[in-house]
């Protein structure tokens, strides 16, 4: 697949942005500077970026509890995201949602979700609306392997197939559902096999290889946009850290397993690829990473100083004023 240098560079930057965002989110959680739980996307960056780079700006995504990567990949502003983690009024959700509920409807980000697989029926509804409104938009639902054992996954896949909904189901199979191995809770080895039950293509992709993810996403999105119906992409990946934070303390993973996957760090692989292709050299790559890291530090500094929600905010946004 031919990608322009600009696209390849942007993919590197976006993956780096996600990594640098979440590494700092982890520290902020450990320092108790941000509130609640943070589910880190580190290791899975190639999926969010590979897919979202294939979307149009007005396309839609639904996300998960491990959703920071999806938001950044779809154009989310990191300062507003940090502000939400700090529970500030300037956060995406005004400090009323936190990490697990971040959304930006104006960017087509329908939202992270604290309920596993809940984004799939919602994504189905968004895709249905695109058919109804004849607006040519595609909806991508991101979810983990654990979500594919929920009824919501199966109900949404079945109805999406029947309606030929313009959507793509992107499974991030990171080997664990919460603190238990995927194979201990899932009846198939390859989640992609589940697509056959719903008469849609099911494709297995190396989730650490952004070019592979991107190419598969382009095909599935084109199929959805042209009326060909939904597809399932299973991206094989790995959660570098724990279910919650870096080390929650209840799960002992094999260090060799972690090392094996770390060796295939998607950002490292892409950096090597871009150096090999002459897009940049190592020094430039380091400078890009350092600049992104610095931008995160300043975003954190500004977000932490932002105003808290006012006490009145407790009672607002429960209901909408009806506008007939």
């Amino acid at each position, binding site marked *: 697949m031919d990608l322009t240098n600009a696209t390849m560079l942007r993919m590197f930057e976006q993956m780096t942005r996600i990594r640098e965002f979440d590494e700092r989110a982890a520290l902020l959680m450990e320092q108790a500077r941000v509130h609640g739980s943070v589910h880190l996307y580190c290791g899975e960056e190639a999926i969010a970026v590979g897919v979202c780079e294939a979307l149009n700006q007005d396309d839609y995504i639904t996300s998960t509890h491990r959703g920071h990567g999806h938001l950044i990949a779809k154009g989310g502003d990191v300062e507003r995201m940090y502000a939400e983690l700090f529970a500030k009024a300037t956060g*995406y959700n005004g400090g009323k949602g936190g990490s697990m509920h971040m959304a*930006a409807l104006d960017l087509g980000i329908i*939202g992270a979700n*604290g*309920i596993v697989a809940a984004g799939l029926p919602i994504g*189905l509804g968004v895709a*249905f*609306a695109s058919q109804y409104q004849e607006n040519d938009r595609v909806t991508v639902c991101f979810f983990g392997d654990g979500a594919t054992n929920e009824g919501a996954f199966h109900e949404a896949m079945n*109805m999406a197939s029947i309606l030929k909904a313009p959507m793509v189901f992107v499974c991030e199979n990171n080997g664990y559902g919460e603190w238990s191995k995927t194979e201990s809770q899932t009846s198939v080895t390859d989640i992609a096999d589940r697509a056959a039950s719903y008469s849609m293509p099911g494709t297995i992709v190396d989730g650490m290889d952004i070019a592979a993810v991107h190419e598969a996403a382009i095909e599935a999105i084109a199929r959805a946009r042209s009326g060909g119906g939904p597809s399932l992409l299973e991206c094989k990946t790995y959660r570098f850290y724990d279910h919650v934070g870096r080390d929650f303390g209840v799960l002992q993973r094999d260090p060799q397993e972690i090392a094996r996957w770390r060796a295939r760090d998607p950002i490292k692989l892409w950096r090597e690829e871009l150096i090999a292709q002459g897009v940049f050299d190592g020094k430039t790559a380091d400078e890009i990473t350092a600049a992104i890291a610095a931008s995160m530090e300043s975003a954190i500094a500004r977000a932490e100083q932002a105003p808290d929600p006012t006490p009145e905010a407790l009672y607002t946004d429960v209901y909408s004023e009806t506008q007939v």
Partner: protein
Amino acid sequence: MTVKTMTAAINEAIDQEMGRDDRVFVAGEDVRVGGPFGTEAGLHAKYGDKRIVNTAISELALTGIGVGAAAVGLRPIIEIMIMDFVSVAMDQIVNQMAKMKYMLGGQARLPIVVTTHAGIDSSSAAQHSGSLEAWFCHVPGLKVVMPSNAYDAKGLLTAAIQDDNPVIYISNKRCMQTSSEVPDESYALPLGVADVKRVGSDVTVVAIGRLVLDALTAAEELAKEGINLEVIDPRTLSPMDTTTIVKSVQKTNRAVVAHEAVRNCGIGAEIAATIADEAFDFLDAPVKRVGAPFTPVPFAPLLEKQYLPGAQDIVAAVRSLYH
């Protein structure tokens, strides 16, 4: 004005709102054949596949269609055929549509109506007879509407479809078979406003759904004994028009609350508590609650009859206030 069944009134409200606003669509099981109760009769022929959407027997996905479509600008009517089936869709109703606006800091506007059919209707047994309105009254972010007659049903459904919030619209199955005068033209009755169905001076009866009709029957019987009931139908259970209820109790000094749902933790308990809070000094007797016993709905017609609260239970509750 024409005499119409509540079913026909519901059908007319959907039809007129679909005619007025092309963002309104209906999705549900078997809605293309009009639904088992006939609430969508004739609508598929008029509006076609696009706007009358048959779904699989898949309440969670069906409700998700409503949440997602509303989040991006449509105005879905989601039909859950029988109220007991809401349990399958609970995550999308309670965790998603009810909370989305708040969790997202006000970003979302979710104009969704979930229509469903509740209550006992000729031996449908424990999984097809439930009156589960109290479940939804406990959830901030939802509105809950439960009409008792055809006129209210049409006006409240029109308002619910025009409302920019998720509304759970519950039709009692035995009310649906009743008829009353209904204007042919479109009209909306405001949500959150109770209606005094009978003006009286001695006892306030706050009744929900089918029990409104039973309360009016009880009122006729008790009038012969010189007890004059005031019958209030809240019509909207969340938000509830407690002002009308409290004012009435301040006048009558006695109150009975009545619904077909199980008495324990029913919406009647909330109404009774509100009366105790806001009109305690006016009460001459304890507030009595009429509701179903704390059992699942039985199948045997004999047991079902024994289970079902009705006019005689209201009469007995009122009489007990005078001992």
